């Protein structure tokens, strides 16, 4: 597609519910990133894929967070047993190049706003 597409745009979950957030990167982009943006804060890194390989998941806040990119294109961020502190905008970004030496800022999607009630 022309840009990075994320769905759903908005998600309301009851505390304890599992959610899955989808990211469709730009076709052919090798690198894919997930960031979490809490209200009034800047985005914070969650995890990074190069093709289907998850090379860095150091930013995932707990073992309730899980991300996958099985075929090296679409990625899903799954949050199990959601808590109120998980409420945030989840941003996906992709880049045509491999992680090391990326010189371009990534292309970000519009995000999924998750509200846990």
């Amino acid at each position, binding site marked *: 597609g022309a840009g990075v597409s994320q769905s759903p745009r908005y998600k309301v979950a009851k505390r304890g519910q599992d959610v899955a957030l989808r990211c469709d990167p730009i076709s052919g982009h090798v690198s894919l990133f997930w960031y979490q943006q809490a209200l009034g804060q*800047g985005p914070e890194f969650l995890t990074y894929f190069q093709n289907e390989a998850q090379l860095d998941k150091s930013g995932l806040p707990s073992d309730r967070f899980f991300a996958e990119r099985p075929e090296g294109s679409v990625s899903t961020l799954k949050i199990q047993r959601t808590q109120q502190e998980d409420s945030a905008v989840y941003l996906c970004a992709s880049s045509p190049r491999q992680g090391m030496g990326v010189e371009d*800022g990534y292309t970000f999607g519009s995000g999924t706003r998750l509200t846990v009630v």
Partner: protein
Amino acid sequence: AQSVTQLDSQVPVFEEAPVELRCNYSSSVSVYLFWYVQYPNQGLQLLLKYLSGSTLVKGINGFEAEFNKSQTSFHLRKPSVHISDTAEYFCAVRRSGYSTLTFGKGTMLLVSP
């Protein structure tokens, strides 16, 4: 580890006035620096970046920024703002050899007539 400080959470300014949004970073190694803009309910759009070379970089929409290594700063400037520049602006740093970005908390630019 690197960190990014955006000193102002909000900057109100009148249309056609100049503006400077401040950004300071801390890192013990070489870094690349970026400014992003975020309009309401949208993703982040790259304004400009400093990778190497000239310390004055020009970006889209008439914005520019100057890299100052001695002061570890990368302030964003525009000589004359428009109402349409109202948005949140994020400074970000990427450590040389790594792929992830570290963002500041953002500065809300509010342009009024």
